[in-house]
């Protein structure tokens, strides 16, 4: 059944043009220069570590490569997501868009998907460089867990971009939104320790607050498959799928919150 808005417009038809516009905007902002930086770092580190870490060259290059992919994508993602709407408000180009037959939530989703496409392209390109380097410099073989760890990096981005975009709409300050997103990222990786602290702390109030924080913040350790590449039994695929679904739903919650805030904004 097709859903129509009160004005008779079909819901969702504007998402793709907005996403396409976001992609073009990011390409123009020379965001892909970060890929060149990645190539230089990886080429350099693979040369250095093949001499410094005998017998573990493949492991070291894989770890550094996946860490760089994650960090570069995180920086690109947070920066792009935070500035997506704020810059348009600052440049007043948003007024022009808001005069068009466009739902505000469509604008948010379109912008969000555009950033994700750029990040996905970045991850695939960097991953290809990493695989090429590993093949050229070591006797490394591709494992399913390696692919899953790259997929999990993208799902972390699905979450953090939604968080950053919503934070930018709520705080309307790019610095605060970036700090909030960064803090979410850090605490998300620290969630197992948060739970441990909550279990051990005596104060009822502090315990409650820590548990609240623990469940409110996404558990990024669940997505951190790159740290689990060396575990003999790996992570069962049914749990991986469950975690990825959790990531999608968590991002959806933030997008709904962001859309609600954006719908109430006065332009």
């Amino acid at each position: 059944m097709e859903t129509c808005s009160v004005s008779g417009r079909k819901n969702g038809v504007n998402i793709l043009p907005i996403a396409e516009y976001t992609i073009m905007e990011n390409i123009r902002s020379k965001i892909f220069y970060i890929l060149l930086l990645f190539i230089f770092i990886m080429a350099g580190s693979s040369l250095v570590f093949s001499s410094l870490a005998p017998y573990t060259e493949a492991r070291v290059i894989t770890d550094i490569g996946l860490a760089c992919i994650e960090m570069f994508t995180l920086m690109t993602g947070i920066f792009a997501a935070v500035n997506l709407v704020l810059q348009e408000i600052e440049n007043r180009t948003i007024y022009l868009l808001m005069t068009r037959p466009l739902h505000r939530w469509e604008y948010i989703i379109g912008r969000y998907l555009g950033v994700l496409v750029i990040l996905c392209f970045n991850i695939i390109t960097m991953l290809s460089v990493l695989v090429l380097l590993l093949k050229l410099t070591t006797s490394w073989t591709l494992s399913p867990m390696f692919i899953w760890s790259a997929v999990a990096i993208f799902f972390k981005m699905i979450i953090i971009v939604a968080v950053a975009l919503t934070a930018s709409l709520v705080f309307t300050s790019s610095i605060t939104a970036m700090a909030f997103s960064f803090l979410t990222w850090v605490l998300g990786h620290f969630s197992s320790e948060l739970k441990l602290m909550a279990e051990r702390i005596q104060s009822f109030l502090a315990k409650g607050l820590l548990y609240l924080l623990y469940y409110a913040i996404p558990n990024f350790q669940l997505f951190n498959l790159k740290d689990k590449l060396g575990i003999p039994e790996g992570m069962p695929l049914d749990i991986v799928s469950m975690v990825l679904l959790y990531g999608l739903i968590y991002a959806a919650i933030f997008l709904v919150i962001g859309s609600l805030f954006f719908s109430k904004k006065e332009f």
Partner: protein
Amino acid sequence: MSKSVVWGLASIIILSVVAFTLRTTAENRYIYPFSPVSTMHYVDDNPYLELGAMFFGLRSMAADIVWIKTLQYYGGPTEGETREEHEHHIAEEAHGDHHHHHHDRHDADTTAYRKLYALCTRAVWLDPYFFHVYNIGSAAIGFVQERYDEAAALLKEGVVWNYNPNSVHYWRLNYALAALGYEKVKDYKNAIAILEKMIDPDDSPLILLRVLANTYEKNGDYRKSLKLWKFISHKFPDQEIKAQQKMKILAQRIAG
């Protein structure tokens, strides 16, 4: 409250319940596979690396960094030796001028490289599944430096964390532990039997091949030791001078 806000809030509640259910199910079925922060090890350094690794989800990479630091430490001067003295010793070995031919430069000096065990435990605290730390680290600490208890403690940790009867790594750690026990009581015959099962000449690190060659020698199996040193000399060209020295001594023993 407008209709869209009500729908928005309702979807947030429903999605939160689904997310909470998925998360708790995943967390209950998959136990966090690393040691908590309260069990953190310290060496001389401050724990910034560990904290950074946990905050950014980069434990495996941090373990690599500690392992590289460990290898550099073991390749550098011992405690009480200056950098110049160390370089002088290296140069002597490279030119074959060293007088203590029977052992490596720091063999059987149980006080040398005291931090080795602490560095290895720091690496495996970050990534307890890092096989090479247990495998190479225990060989250096136990078989070379003859600090058997430290090496056994490291290997036992490796066996506990890497329990998987179908894994070659798991069995190699168990073999290393058994061989170390025999080596400690100077039962070289049994130590060799286990080391031979554990070591694959084409695949094992140099340090383990040297351990086996030295254990052959200690057991009086000079021909086997000579053969293995020949293999080492071919496989690792940078070991040629060391291997030549060893082969000369072994040839003399076989003749005499």
